[in-house]
């Protein structure tokens, strides 16, 4: 029987985007403090973080819009160097900016005609399909488009290039839920059909949880959580412990316990790994009865980002 092959590469060395120790400061403010990223080829990679955590700075650094102070960054295995090197890399990338601004003096059709010649692998079939699916009026001037339409236009321009990698800065921002769902569907369809790697930053944890297979949570310029989403969800657990007598006040918790919350005779433990050892330790406490809960991505995000 024919085997179903896992989409994308499982070889950890086959990374489309790779950064190591990326640092960047602006006027004394450290935006990135040693960011390590590894985005596997063919994955849908969600990049989460609070406002100001460094998401857009990272994306701009990857696109060559700004130069990191130190650290290494590679796309397709090539260092993001100076001017000329960047050109070849950018021919294989589709990009959507944070504020979705395009040229105010052009119409939809004009900006498509403008963008097309830069990309020899332009896909006319995708252009036709998405022009229709997104209902973009070709003769309309860009400033007259609604925010949702502009996002879709930028997405179209990014998708039709036949790019191997899409870098999207908050693609769903400002979109109403129906359009956002359309966009998510387009992205998953693209990933499945073309094997495109999709790297996107977002505030919407639910969106990331829905379509990403890898995530990275960035906080204060560093990656605090990174890896395959399924792995993370099996590693992290929440334990609720009910005590029939007064629980011990201070316990030297084993490795893996991230946070413990007390409330009377109840305990809430958030563990990032080593869960079996944690459960053993809890069960050794007198009067304890444990219940285990899987964690959502939102919980992981809130717990890992809160107390810094």
């Amino acid at each position: 029987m024919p085997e179903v092959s896992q989409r994308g590469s499982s070889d950890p060395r086959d990374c489309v985007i790779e950064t190591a120790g990326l640092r960047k400061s602006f006027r004394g403010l450290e935006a990135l403090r040693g960011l390590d990223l590894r985005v596997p080829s063919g994955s849908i990679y969600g990049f989460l973080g609070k406002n100001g955590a460094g998401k857009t700075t990272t994306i701009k650094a990857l696109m060559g819009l700004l130069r990191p102070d130190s650290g290494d960054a590679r796309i397709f295995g090539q260092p993001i160097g100076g001017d000329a090197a960047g050109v070849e890399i950018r021919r294989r990338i589709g990009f959507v900016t944070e504020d979705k601004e395009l040229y105010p003096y052009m119409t939809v059709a004009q900006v498509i005609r403008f963008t097309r010649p830069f990309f020899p692998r332009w896909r006319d079939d995708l252009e036709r399909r998405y022009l229709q699916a997104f209902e973009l009026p070709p003769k309309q001037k860009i400033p007259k488009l609604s925010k949702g339409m502009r996002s879709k236009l930028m997405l179209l321009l990014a998708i039709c290039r036949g790019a191997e990698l899409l870098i999207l800065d908050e693609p769903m921002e400002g979109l109403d839920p129906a359009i956002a769902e359309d966009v998510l569907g387009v992205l998953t369809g693209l990933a499945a059909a073309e094997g495109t790697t999709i790297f996107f930053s977002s505030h919407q944890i639910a969106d990331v949880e829905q379509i990403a297979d890898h995530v990275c949570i960035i906080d204060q310029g560093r990656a605090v959580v990174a890896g395959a989403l399924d792995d993370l969800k099996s590693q992290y657990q929440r334990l609720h412990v009910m005590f029939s007598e007064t629980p011990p006040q201070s316990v030297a918790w084993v490795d893996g316990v991230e946070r413990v919350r007390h409330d009377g005779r109840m305990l809430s433990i958030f563990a990032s790994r080593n869960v079996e050892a944690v459960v053993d330790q809890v069960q050794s406490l007198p009067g304890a009865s444990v219940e285990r809960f899987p964690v959502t991505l939102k919980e992981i995000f809130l717990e890992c980002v809160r107390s810094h």
Partner: protein
Amino acid sequence: MIFRLTPSSGVPVYLQLIGQVKHAVETGALQPGDQLPTIRRLAEDLVVNPNTVVRAYRELQHEGVIELRHGSGAYVGESKTASTRITRRDRAVVESAVERLAAAGLTEDEIRRLFEHALISLRHGASKGGNHA
């Protein structure tokens, strides 16, 4: 395909999908020989990561619930014995337990919680190799 997946519940999405396909097969909504959507189509329709669908299909194929034919896609398996692991007897076990608990005065919620507790202990017991209090 009418499937309902909740990415933010505790259960991995691919398992949810496997469960839903099996349920469809059990209830007859999917008959042997019926064609399932392509990985790409299903990922796009359900708006989930394609790898999730890949994993679910792979597992279903492994269990014999579906077959993958070169070039044409995924089909519900012909073999009756592999189509569902849940037998009528399994159903009867659960039904009688529920009836008894209900007769003892427990509400639906309470019964559900008991089952979940039991499953969690089972999981914990299984991973500890059977050493549980």
